């Protein structure tokens, strides 16, 4: 268990709804759900998640903290916004799903090996290196995330696309040596650090 998690458990005891209200993006809207089920029925990924948004909202109220935060359901959201458009109570369901995923990630409770989480982490770390996303190293990182052999297989499968991009001059092979950077990398880092500090303070995570 991470320190943040231990702290959160001590602070909110069994009141998971309050924890979500205070610490999750748009979490204060969770209590507005009237359990009609339109979000669950409208989600194009519906049959593939373990818990629908409707069920997650009920689980939050029921204090099922571990089950919710370690579930991979909210990571399945593709932001199609069907649920938000149809929700009769206008809950920002998509935002709450991303908020929950982010919170679970911060507490290090999120589902291990969840592909969306892995990609997001890869993207973020790649971006933070130079202040710009390096498409070549990001793609390679993605191909090789499950080991060397699988990486070779993935690369071969995408060979045609890669060569096409090279030919069209949309992919510079020299980017492998670090690539182009922002003018002032440290400035970006300071900005992000400040933003995080503000957000953590607001969410009580500082």
């Amino acid at each position, binding site marked *: 268990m991470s320190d943040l998690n231990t702290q959160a458990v001590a602070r909110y005891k069994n009141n998971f709804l309050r924890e979500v209200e205070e610490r999750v993006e748009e979490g204060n809207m969770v209590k507005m759900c009237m359990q009609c*089920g*339109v979000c669950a*029925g*409208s989600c194009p990924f519906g*049959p593939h998640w373990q818990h*629908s948004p*409707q069920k997650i909202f009920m689980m939050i109220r029921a204090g099922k903290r571990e089950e919710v935060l370690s579930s991979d359901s909210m990571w399945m959201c593709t932001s199609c916004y069907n649920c938000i458009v149809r929700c*009769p109570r*206008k809950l920002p369901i998509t935002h709450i799903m991303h908020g929950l995923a982010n919170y679970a990630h911060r507490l290090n409770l999120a589902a291990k090996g969840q592909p969306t989480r892995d990609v997001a982490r890869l993207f973020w770390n790649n971006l933070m290196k130079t202040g710009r996303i390096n498409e070549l190293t990001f793609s390679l990182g993605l191909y090789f995330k499950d080991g060397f052999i699988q990486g070779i297989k993935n690369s071969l499968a995408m060979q045609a696309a890669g060569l096409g991009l090279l030919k069209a001059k949309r992919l510079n092979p020299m980017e492998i040596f670090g690539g182009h950077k922002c003018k002032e990398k440290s400035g970006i880092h300071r900005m992000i650090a400040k933003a995080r500090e503000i957000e953590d303070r607001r969410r009580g995570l500082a």
Partner: protein
Amino acid sequence: MTASIATSQGILVVGGGISGMTAALEAAECGKQVILVEKTPSLGGRTAQLYRYFPKMCHPSCGMEINLKRIKGNPNLRVMTMTEVIAVSGTRGNYAVTLKVTPRYVTPDCTACGECGKVVASEVADPFNYGLSKVKAAYLPHAMAYPQRYVIDPLIVDTAEGEAAKAACKYGAVDLGMKEETIQINVGSVVWTTGWRPYDAAKIQPYGYDRYANVITSVEFERLCDPHGPTGGKILRPGDGKEARNIAFIQCAGSRDENHLPHCSRICCMASLKQTQYVREAYGDGENAGKSTIYYIDIRAIDRLEDFYRMVQQDPTVSFVKSKVARIAENKENGNPVLHGVDTEGYHRYATEHDLVVLAVGMEAEVTGVKLPEDIILDSSNFIEGSRDGGMFGAGAASSPLDVNRSVQSATAASLKAIQVIYKTASTEAA
């Protein structure tokens, strides 16, 4: 006759549905001079278009008959149909009201013999059946219409058909030269009983009311079940005219929805519970029993009507699914609507096919042809709360989503308030 009512001691009631008829009668029976205006050609409003009432399952014709008898027998009450209020000025105790009378093209000499209708071939959508059927362009609005007088649709007025209708009338009651009239009256108080209208179901995009023939509204279902309706009381679905036996009722179609009507329309749960009993009545509960399924968020059987809900719960032909349906698709082969959603009692995903879907549409305040004075105070859903000067009142479904019973109570209350305005302002004048 006009002289006696054109004083500021009179009361104007706007809208001749069950609330307007009640408000007008209560005041007239207390000795007040009352004018009741109605924009359509006959009284009764949406109540007359119901097949039966809950909870006693009686027919509206019975109550209509009693009210019409009271109206006919009361010299204090003047009824004006095809009349709209276009302007109100003045203040409590002394309003000047401008009325617009649309030509009916038929004079009071009409005996409702029906000869004009026989010679006319053109047809128009029948508003009494919510457009589910057509009616001749010279027609009686419905069997119990008051006044019992034909109407000629403007469509045929300047045509040979109009002339033929005129020639066919043995009583010389067809007057094709009738013109729109504007009338000024003075009254002391106004009761607005302008009623409600069903929420436009086509706006609820995922339910496909505008795309699927076998998705209809609850008000249309009333007409389908009525022996005087377009199908002679047989539950034949509009798509292919096949008998519908497996019927789904979707609650909160538009109501309790921030994207549509934020308020609960109150009557729709009871209306659907009632309509399951039409299905039972049509097919019995034996081997060939029909099947009703109610999809709901929660059942709100208003007021003292919980007993009715319990009775329907015991009915083996009725089942309940706790879920707001997410969307409707159509089975292309047989035209059946397929309901998709997830239920709240166990989170089971379903895709259920029915013969016919009835959307229990919400009530919104009627605004078509209604021009309310600026002094009127509306609530957040456009229902009438009253007027700033305290001389005008809302009643019935114009004031809140109400069933027939509660509309009558509300109308009686508003009538009493209007009478008080007359007495108070009259005594001020005297003093």
